[in-house]
Structures are given as C-alpha cells and as structure tokens.
C-alpha cells in the first residue's frame, strides 16, 4: 500500500522532471558500450550494432512499458473514455435526455430535502469547539410553572454555574420577541436575553464595539441597559454603520444603549432562527415577564447550555451531575413553597433526573418539530432515487443489448473486458453527473418551495435554499454513487457477450441475452415494490392530514375569524393602563363596520401553545398520580360568541366579574369549563355552582363554575379536545398578553389594514403582529403534516410514473424480442385475446412479484412513521388497497400499449423479421 503511494508520488514528480531524457541518454550509452564490446570480440561495426540491439531487446516496447510506469496512463484513458462516452450519448439524445431527467428528479428531490435536513439537523454551530457543547435540563414534575420545552429555573442555573464539576462556562439564554423602537419607529424584534459569559463561552468575538462579559454585564439586577446587535441585523437595519455604537434604542419603551455587534456568521444557538438583538439576562424586568423569575425556583423558563470539561464524555458528565441535582432537589423541598406537598408528589419530585444532551448543532424548536418529518422525507427521497437508478439501469440494459454488436466488435479487435466496463461506467457517470447538475438546479427551486411551507411569521428564519459547498459535495457524492449503482450491473451484463454469435447474427436482430431480460425484470419488480412503499406512505400521510383537518375545531367558520396580537406590556404601561388599552381596542374594533363581535384571550388558539395546571375539584378526591391537568385560558366577555362556541349551560362572563381592586386572593372568582371538563369530573350532573381551585396543598376551592361551553380545540388537532378552564380577564392582577379575535361579516383580508389603523390611533408605537385568519393559523399549526403529506404525494406520483416507464420499457422490449414468436402464434390461428393475455400476464406477474416484496417491506417500515400519523393506523387496509389499485391500473396501462402492439403484429412481416 505504502509503496503504491510512493509510486504515485514518483509519477507525480516524473510529470515535472525531465526523467525521460536522462533515461534515453542512459540507454544510448548502454547500447554504445554493448556495441563496443561486440567489436572488441571481433564483429564488424554493423553486426555489432545489430547484436547490441538484439541483446538489449525491443526498445519501443520498453519505451511503452516505461511510459506506463512513469505516467498516469489510466488518466489519459479516462479522458478518452469521457470523450467516447459523450459521443455515444450525443448519438442517442432521446435516451440521454430521459436518463438525465430521471436522475435529475431523483437527485433533485434528495438534495432539496437534504438541504433542509443539513441546516436544521446535521450542521454544527459556528462556535468554538462545538463538540463539547451540551444542553442541560431537568425532566419530571417541577411542581410549579414551566415555559416552553426543556426549561430550567434561574436559581438552578446559578447552582450549575457554581457547583457543577464536570462543566465549565455554564450559560443561559431566553428567547423572546419584543417591541423595539429605533429612531421613532417600533418593530417586533427577536430578542435573546443571555448570561454575561454567553459570548465568552461560545468564543464569539465582537465585530464592532464589545460583546457582553461576566464582569461588566452580569452584576446588578436591572443595572445593565446595554444591547448587542447581531451582525445580520446590523447589516440589514443599519447598513453596517459603525456609528450605531452608543446609540440609544427603546426596548419595550425602556432606553438601552447599543454597545457592540457580534461576529459575522454567528446566529445563536438555534440553527433555524436568529435573534436580532441580545440583552443581559439581568435586564429581564424590561421584558414583559414576571420579574420574580430570577429568584423563583418554581419558575422554569431558561435554556441552559454548557461546555463539558476535557476528559468528560457527555454520558460521564450526565452521571456526575446527578448527585448535585438531587442535592438541589432536597434543598428545594425544604422551601416554604413546597412544604405542604403530598407524599406522592414529593416522591415524584425526587424521581426527577437531569438530562444532558450534546448541543454541537444547537437546539431548535423547529428541529424538534420537523426532524422526524425530514428524516421520513429523506428516506422517501432515497427510495425515489433508487427507483430512478433502477429505471436508468433498465434503459442501459436495453441499450447494451442494442449495442451488442458494437461491444462484440470492440472485444474482437482486442479491447479487454475491463476496459469496456470502464468505458461503459464512464458513460453512466456522465449521465449521473449531468443529472446531478440539473438536479441541483431543480433542488434550489424545490427547497424554496419547501421553505414556503414552513410558517415564518415574525421570525428571522435562518434556513436558506442556496446550495453551498456541503450541498455541492452531497450532490457530487450522490452522482458518483448513483452512477456506479445503475451503471455497474448493465456494464457487467453488457460486456458478457458471445463475440462469435453476436457478430454472425443477422443485422437488426435483437438478441438481448436471457440474463439481461431477467435483470430488467428484477429491476422492475424492485421498482414496483419501492413505488408501493412510497404510495402507501403518501396515502398514510394524506389521510393523516385529512383527518387532522377534519377534526372538528368546535369553532365556527374559521375563514371569517381574524386574529392578531398587540403587546403593550412594558415599563410604560401599568396593569390598569394595559387593561384599559385592551378594553379601548376591543371597543373601537366592535364599532367597525362589518365586525360582528370581538374578544380577546391570553392563550393563542391552535398555536401549539399551552398553559396548563392541575386543579382540585369539589367533591372529587384525586388519587395519587391521577391526571388532574386542565388547559387554561383567560378570556374577555364575548369570547364564545366571537369564536362560535355554544354555551351549554349557565352564563358568559360579563361586567359582574370585573375586578375592582383589593386583594385578588380574597375575592371569590368565577370560571367557565368546557363539556369535557364537566363530564370528566361531574358526569351527568350539572357543573354550574360547583367549585374548583388549584391543586396546591391546602388551597381553597375559591372559583365558582358559572358556565359550561361546548368542546373546542386548544393547542392543535393532534392534541384533541382537553378539559378546559376559562378564567375572566378582568380578574388578572398581573399584566397579561392578549390575542384578539374578530368575527367579521365582510372580507377578512380587507379588515387587516382597518384594524391596524385602529390600534395605531390608540398607540402608534405598538406594532400589530401575527395578523391572519384562524383558518391560516390552522394551516400553520399543521405545517409539518402539510409538508409531509404534499411532498409524499408528489414523491408517490413520481415513483408511480417512473415505475410505469420501467414497466413499459420492459414490456416493449419483451414484445419486440418475441415479435417472431407472436407472429407465428397469430399465423397458426391464436386469437388476439390470447396474445393480449400473453403479454398482460407477464405484467401481472411482475406486479405481483413487486407487491410480494413491497407489502411486507411497507409493514416493516410502518412503525418508523407511526409517530407522524394521526387518525389512521400504520397498517391501514384502505390505504394499502388504494396503493395496490393505483399500481394495478398503472401497470395495466403501461402493459396494454405493448400488448396492443403485439396483437397488431402482421404475421407475414413478423416471420420475415430479422
């Protein structure tokens, strides 16, 4: 091996050195010396020279030998093969076009899905030493509030920072979208609150000014009114102007100073989206969150990342952190907030574990949501490519059969079989490279299409469709692999030619060997099997989407229900002012022409967003571990009317429920529950007048149920209807966010600018965001399902078309080969129908064989996709039957055309054929 490498290096040197001339000199002098010796032995000079040459051997042959040794013969041959292959392909443009297009479809589909998969799942973060980066979060019940996935409380974060031995540079971050005023105009910007050591830990330098440091920006609660811009936002919003340093901007109306810009290319820890600005975590009070969050151990809301120390694996770090974590849990149980928990809850609490997972490629909600879907799609795209490959292989086999004579001639005049195989493979590679080039171009368009299917409201989505070096490399790799995959078998098959019989065969005969016909049949069988997989998958995903979409939302006419958000919370608005702002907004909107009613709620519906809590219910003794969870919402009066949710019993909220000052905990409050809640806890009895409370030990059942409403969806159709409790907005003692809902009798789109105008009149600095119809919202919450369903249907259709082409090709080939036989049968009086059956029988056999392979495979694969399904079993019979039916029809059609041709054969011509 090593000496092979040295030989290669020597050849490389030989390319540049004048070795050949030196060697010529040597050989000349050798011949001279030999001649002199013969003369000395008494030969004549002429004889001596001849004898010397004889003794030296064939100099020309030697020269050839040496050239082979000293130069890259294979390289020169390769170039020759490339030119030859290109000429062959040009000579048969139809074949080349079909093959390249087929491959382009396959490679394009793969590249498109891979582009997204790579950016969202595979790529490492552009930070220092990403391999050692981990994400840390506690799993299990917190007995408090949790926000979003994988949340950690701020005090626990501090514990890790101070005490975790396996970790260094523990950082925390919190994502939010805030109203930021720059030069008088206000926009919603992605804002990331980060710990002071954030940039230092990730090794991200400032591009301008400074970034945060633990010393300067992580000391005083509310004491660091400073902002670092992301490079991209700086370039887009400020045109890269260095004078932004020292500029004052308002974050939720709180003045803060721009002190720097982070390095170009650094987007953050989420590969799918990027914050525009970053603020120190101690500036949390500026955000409309509960300021208590920084000291409350029961509030989990942060993401925590860290580096594992050298010498620790992720697993070792995880194990070594558990004792510390349990010590923290024990301490937390001593706190007053948890002093009254039941023994059961206490045991559950102590069973919590600390999760540590590599974060080398960051953390992304979008990834959590889409990665399985993308993996499934990648698998499907791979199947498409396999079908495309087998199709092209089929084409190549019939081509090789047609080229048998050419190959026989080349073999007869002394080409080695290896040389021929190589030149055929080069031809395949030319096809696959051309296919890859076209496929890459197609994938850019396709990726844009895919991105358009992801909801991107308000976020700076970092995913893009432009191919980069990695994608190009992927394309080249796929091209080479496919070229070999579809080229090898036909090349091996095609060069196994009986030279003698091929050459003596009469011109025009198609004597494709029995082997190549069998190979083609195997390929078509595989295509049918793969197509079945894809069709069954497409059927399952389409059915999932349909059943999700047809899940009754419990709301009326989503198309004329407009929703939007506006967020006045911040230092400039008191709780009362916020309440007034909401009331004024609702009043102004209700007065608009074409508006039937308007209301607000705190939790946006069908948003994948939830706020839930455990309840205690009058007359219901909760067993240990019983699910007492209910989904909460806080609403204004008129909410049910606006949403179209009918009242079953009792009443809606109204002015009676208005909170009029004093200690809110003393005032008996009112709630409305949905039918599911009522049936769950009260059975057939009426819930009206009964009481509920929160499940905290010793808490009183202070809330009276005043109404029961019909069921409606909450976070999304997948989660179905949940037991729900509605609270009156008037009672809230803290500033709450608001989602507005407007029921219109006119065109929803026309209402958008009018509503914006209304809000601008009340406060021009507040941006209106997430404005759309609830119908659009429903589509967005189903975007994963839509993505999978529509792509898999496209893939399924593509697969079916390719399989049809393959079947047609095989049958056309078979009929052409059997022309003489069929002609003979017809001449002997075989009825047309039996000829038709002769051909169709073979089609059915191929179809049956394909299904025989495909159905069990589909069954085996179904469990990998079951997590993506809804309302349909992975082994759904109707989907299976539909896929079989589609394939059957397609097979019949693609077999029928050659079959018809066979019946139309004129026995006279057929017998003269050859």
């Amino acid at each position, binding site marked *: 091996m090593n000496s092979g490498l040295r030989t290669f290096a*020597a050849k490389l040197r030989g390319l540049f050195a004048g070795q050949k001339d030196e060697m010529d000199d*040597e050989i000349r*002098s050798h011949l001279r*010396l030999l001649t002199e010796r013969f003369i000395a032995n008494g030969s004549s000079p002429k004889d001596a020279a001849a004898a010397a040459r004889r003794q*030296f051997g*064939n100099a020309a042959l030697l020269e050839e030998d040496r050239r082979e040794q000293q130069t890259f013969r294979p390289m020169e041959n390769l170039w020759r093969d490339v030119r030859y292959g290109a000429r062959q392909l040009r000579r048969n443009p139809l074949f080349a076009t079909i093959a390249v297009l087929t491959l382009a479809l396959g490679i394009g589909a793969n590249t498109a899905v891979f582009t997204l998969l790579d950016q969202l799942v595979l790529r490492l973060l552009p930070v220092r030493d990403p391999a050692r980066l981990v994400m840390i979060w506690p799993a299990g019940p917190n007995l408090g509030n949790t926000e979003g996935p994988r949340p950690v409380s701020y005090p626990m974060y501090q514990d890790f920072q101070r005490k975790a031995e396996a970790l260094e540079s523990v950082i925390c971050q919190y994502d939010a979208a805030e109203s930021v005023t720059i030069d008088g105009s206000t926009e919603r910007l992605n804002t990331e609150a980060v710990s002071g050591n954030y940039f230092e830990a990730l090794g991200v330098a400032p591009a301008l000014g400074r970034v945060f440091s633990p010393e300067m920006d992580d000391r005083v609660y509310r004491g660091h009114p400073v902002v670092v811009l992301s490079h991209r936002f700086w370039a887009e919003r400020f045109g890269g102007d260095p004078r932004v340093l020292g500029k004052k901007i308002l974050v939720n109306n709180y003045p803060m100073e721009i002190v720097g810009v982070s390095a170009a290319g650094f987007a953050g820890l989420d590969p799918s989206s990027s914050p525009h600005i970053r603020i120190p975590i101690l500036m949390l009070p500026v955000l409309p969150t509960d300021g208590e969050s920084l000291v409350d151990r029961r509030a989990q809301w942060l993401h925590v990342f860290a580096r594992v120390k050298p010498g620790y694996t992720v697993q070792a770090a995880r194990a070594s952190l558990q004792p510390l974590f349990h010590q923290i849990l024990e301490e937390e149980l001593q706190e007053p907030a948890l002093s009254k928990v039941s023994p059961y809850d206490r045991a559950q609490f102590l069973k919590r574990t600390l999760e540590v997972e590599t974060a080398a490629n960051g953390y992304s909600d979008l990834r959590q949501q889409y990665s399985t879907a993308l993996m499934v799609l990648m698998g499907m795209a791979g199947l498409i490519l396999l079908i495309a490959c087998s199709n092209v292989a089929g084409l190549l086999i019939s081509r090789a059969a047609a080229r048998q004579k050419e190959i026989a001639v080349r073999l007869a005049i002394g080409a080695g079989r290896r040389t021929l195989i190589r030149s055929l493979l080069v031809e395949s590679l030319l096809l696959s490279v051309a296919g890859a080039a076209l496929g890459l171009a197609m994938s850019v368009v396709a990726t844009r299409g895919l991105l358009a299917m992801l909801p991107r409201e308000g976020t700076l989505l970092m995913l893009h469709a432009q191919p980069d070096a990695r994608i190009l490399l992927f394309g080249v790799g796929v091209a080479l692999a496919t070229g070999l995959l579809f080229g090898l078998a036909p090349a091996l098959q095609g060069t196994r030619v009986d030279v003698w019989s091929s050459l003596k065969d009469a011109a025009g005969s198609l004597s494709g060997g029995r082997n190549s016909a069998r190979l083609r049949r195997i390929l078509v069988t595989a295509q049918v099997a793969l197509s079945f997989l894809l069709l069954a998958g497409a059927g399952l995903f389409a059915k999932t989407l349909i059943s999700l979409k047809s899940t009754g939302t419990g709301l009326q006419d989503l198309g004329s229900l407009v929703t939007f958000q506006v967020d006045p919370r911040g230092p400039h608005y008191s709780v009362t002012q916020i309440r007034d702002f909401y009331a004024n907004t609702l009043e102004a909107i209700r007065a608009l022409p074409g508006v039937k009613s308007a209301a607000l709620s705190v939790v946006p519906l069908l948003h994948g967003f939830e706020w839930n809590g455990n309840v205690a219910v009058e007359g219901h003794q909760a067993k240990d571990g019983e699910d007492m969870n209910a989904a909460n919402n806080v609403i204004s009066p008129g909410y049910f009317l606006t949403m179209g949710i009918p009242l079953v019993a009792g009443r809606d909220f109204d002015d009676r429920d208005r909170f009029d000052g004093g200690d809110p905990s003393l005032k008996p409050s009112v709630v409305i529950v949905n039918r599911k809640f009522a049936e769950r806890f009260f059975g057939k009895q009426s819930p009206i007048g009964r009481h509920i409370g929160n499940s905290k030990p010793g808490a009183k059942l202070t809330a009276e149920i005043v109404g029961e409403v019909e069921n409606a969806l909450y976070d999304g159709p997948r989660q179905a209807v949940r037991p729900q409790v509605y609270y009156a907005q008037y009672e809230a003692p803290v500033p709450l966010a608001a989602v507005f809902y407007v029921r219109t009798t006119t065109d929803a789109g026309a209402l958008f600018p009018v509503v914006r105008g209304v809000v601008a009149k009340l406060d021009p600095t507040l941006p209106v965001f997430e404005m759309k119809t609830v119908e659009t919202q429903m589509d967005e919450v189903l975007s994963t399902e839509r993505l999978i369903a529509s792509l898999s249907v496209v893939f399924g259709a593509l697969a079916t078309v390719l399989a049809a082409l393959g079947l047609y090709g095989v049958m056309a080939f078979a009929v052409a080969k059997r022309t003489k036989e069929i002609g003979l049968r017809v001449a002997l009086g075989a009825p047309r129908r039996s000829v038709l059956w002769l051909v169709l029988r073979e089609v059915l056999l191929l179809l049956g064989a394909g299904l025989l392979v495909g159905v069990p495979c589909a069954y085996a694969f179904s469990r990998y996709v079951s997590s993506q399904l809804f309302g349909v079993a992975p082994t759904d019979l109707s989907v299976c039957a539909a896929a079989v039916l589609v394939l059957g029809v397609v097979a019949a059609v693609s077999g029928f055309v050659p079959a018809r041709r066979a019946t139309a054969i004129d026995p006279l011509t057929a017998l003269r054929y050859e």
Partner: protein
Amino acid sequence: MTKGKAVDGKKSEVLQGTLDLMVLKTLHALGPQHGFGIARRIEQLSEDVLKLNEGTVYTSLVRLLQRGWIASDWGTSENNRKARFYSITKRGLKQLARETEDWERISGVIGRVLRLEGER
C-alpha cells in the same frame, strides 16, 4: 512485466519479478553500479542460462526507484564517462531480505514437490 523472450530453447525466460530481486541483490553485493554494469553482472552470474533482454533492466530500475528501494546519483564510470549510478537504500535492504526469504521458501517447496515426483 518482463518481456524477455526465449530465442532458442536452451535459455530460460527470466521469471516475472525475479529480475527486480536480481537487480537488488547485485546492488547489495557490489555496491553502486550503473545500468550497464548491472546487466554485465547478471549475464556473468547466469552463465548464459538465462536469456535477458538488457533493456528490461532499466524498466526494473525505474520500478525500484519509484518504490524507493534504490536511489540514483550521477557519477563517473571506469572509462571516465558520466553515468547514473544506482545504489540500494535502507528500505531496499529490508525488501531484499523479505524477498530472499520468500524466494528460498518457495524454491524449497518447489524443490520438495519436484523430488516427490521423482520418487514415484
């Protein structure tokens, strides 16, 4: 590949691969030599049993140079001509030892096999 051709029946063809071994051994035994010298030495030792196309010596030299088993240098020959001298390298010595061992093992086996046939 060596392209030695037996002109008359009495001379054996140089076995494939053995020429390299002979060249290496020659350089090992005699020290640095030029191509002509190597050819003479092999001719002398083979006592006209082997038919050697001397040109193939150069093919062998190129091959050995590329593998790094020999090195070459310009020097002056006995009759004051500028000539390229080849010498065996450290790696070449190791290779020689390895190949000699292989050769002896194989020739031993073949010898035994041939004797076996003789006893029948």
